[in-house]
């Protein structure tokens, strides 16, 4: 197919356009989607804000020192003094959950910064230019994508050693392919659009076209894939810490708390329930927010 036949390509595209439907489409969507769709966004946003708020609070203030062991309060059930109870060493579970979630947030955030950043860059360049650059970079991408991301992260960690920032780097690299693929597809879709041709025509430089003209148009797809990526990073970090290759003690970590509390499931279930619940709510909130973003701004894709 000749890429030059600009006239011929326009017609089919209109329906893909995010905003082409205008007001009719928006109202139609509302009617068809019922309450659940907007509910996704609102509920997700509220839950995310609460969970992130708690985590950010944990950066500045926790009720107890996360590493202080108190022999007198071993495995105490939740009470006013220790609202999530205490663990087998008498440490406050609430404080540890907050601080563990803090490292989780830093790792997941760093992961999507690294994976998303490099992914967006490669995706944009390959999708927009195509040709041998696309072929070359995408084959490297395929190789990366061929490994399950946990496995790839495991390999990287076994080479570099474990630790908070190494986990972040390992997961970040493992997450590049999925972002690159999504962004590449979106850029391929957009590069043939007339507004891109118009921009080229008035002499806009290529980087500006990529990141000022096209990038905002792929935000719905990008944001929702970033939220999914964030959730995957949270889960994988927890999984790796659970296996003992993630965050190292004495730093608190939700995954490690889950694995340590296994032994005390009968005598102190709160040690396992609260970290788990915190993880679930964080993932649920961000996941619903991502869905909501797609529903609201993604034109039903």
């Amino acid at each position, binding site marked *: 197919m*000749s*890429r*030059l036949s*600009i006239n011929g390509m326009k017609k089919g595209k209109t329906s893909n356009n*995010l905003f082409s439907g205008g007001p009719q489409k928006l109202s139609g969507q509302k009617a068809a989607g019922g309450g659940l769709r907007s509910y996704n966004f609102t509920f997700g946003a509220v839950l995310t804000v609460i969970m992130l708020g708690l985590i950010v609070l944990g950066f500045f203030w926790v009720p107890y020192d996360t590493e202080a062991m108190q022999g007198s309060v071993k495995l105490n059930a939740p009470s006013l003094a220790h609202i999530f109870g205490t663990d087998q060493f008498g440490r406050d579970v609430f404080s540890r959950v907050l601080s563990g979630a803090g490292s989780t947030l830093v790792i997941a955030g760093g992961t999507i910064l690294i994976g998303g950043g490099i992914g967006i860059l490669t995706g944009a360049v390959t999708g927009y230019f195509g040709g041998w650059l696309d072929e070359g970079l995408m084959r490297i991408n395929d190789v990366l994508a061929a490994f399950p991301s946990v496995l790839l992260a495991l390999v990287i960690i076994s080479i570099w050693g474990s630790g908070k920032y190494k986990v972040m780097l390992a997961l970040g690299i493992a997450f590049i392919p999925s972002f690159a693929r999504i962004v590449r597809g979106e850029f391929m879709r957009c590069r043939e659009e007339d507004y891109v041709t118009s*921009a080229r*025509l008035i*002499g*806009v430089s290529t980087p500006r076209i990529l990141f000022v003209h096209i990038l905002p148009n792929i935000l719905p797809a990008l944001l929702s894939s970033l939220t999914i990526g964030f959730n995957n990073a949270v889960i994988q970090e927890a999984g790796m810490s659970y296996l003992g290759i993630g965050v190292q003690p004495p730093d608190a970590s939700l995954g490690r708390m889950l694995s340590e509390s296994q032994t005390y499931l009968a005598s102190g279930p709160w040690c396992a329930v609260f970290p788990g619940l915190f993880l679930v709510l964080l993932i649920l909130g961000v996941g619903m927010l991502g869905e909501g973003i797609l529903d609201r701004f993604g034109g039903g894709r």
Partner: protein
Amino acid sequence: MLKVENLSIHFEERGASQEVVRDVSFDIQDGEILGIVGESGSGKTMTALTIAGLLKNNAILDSGSIRLDGVNLLSLSEKEMRSIQGKDISMIFQEPMTALNPTMRIGKQVEEALILHTDLSKEERRKKVIKALEDVELTQPEKLCRKYPYELSGGMRQRVMIAAAIVCRPKLLIADEPTTALDVGTQESILKLLKKLNKKYNMGILFISHNLRVVNELCSRVLVMKDGRVLEEGQAVQIFEHPQTEYTKELIAAIPTRTKGSRFYELLKARASEEGFADSDVKAGEENA
């Protein structure tokens, strides 16, 4: 002002090659409106894209030159070309619905060329944007600047496109079927607008269309293209009244009119008799259908 000489272009894809423009030459004087007519695939859009510097990688230039005020555009580097695009040459497209960026405000899109090609302050740029929007006869330009394309009708978007194209006062505006996607009423007003801008700013226009009627209305000179070649060139009046080639005659005959003896008139008559109307019910008129 613009002089195209012996332009030949072919496509090459996976070993197969196809000629799309063959030995095309023409020129446009300052403030002149030149029309190019031809069917789909006649090379008219390719010629325009080449002038605008938008040749794709798989299109190969065989020969020719395109001179804008003596400067050969084809010999310029990409960067030099970028400084001409949008400033001396701009282009508007067929589909106003997709030619504006859905995520950018109108004001910003019109302003873009000014940011790239001038050193004006923000305030001066804003004034020029407002002026351009007024030039294309859009009301309440200040309010419009803050709107997004989806809030506008097709005709309004085409006007915004034109505003963005003329904001730097280009010497040449390339209009690639700018009215095809619009309804007839809006078509008329856009054509009038182009004519007005052409007079007001002495801006040359290269007008591409497959619609002879529209070309006749707007252009002073016409180029007829087929299969990448120029078949005929001349004053609009001359081409319409004394077409030299069979192809042009056919093109003219294909314009639906209700003048007695025209193909469209005969069709109408045949339909009428089929449906049982009397011949006298089909009125011959001067007006185009």
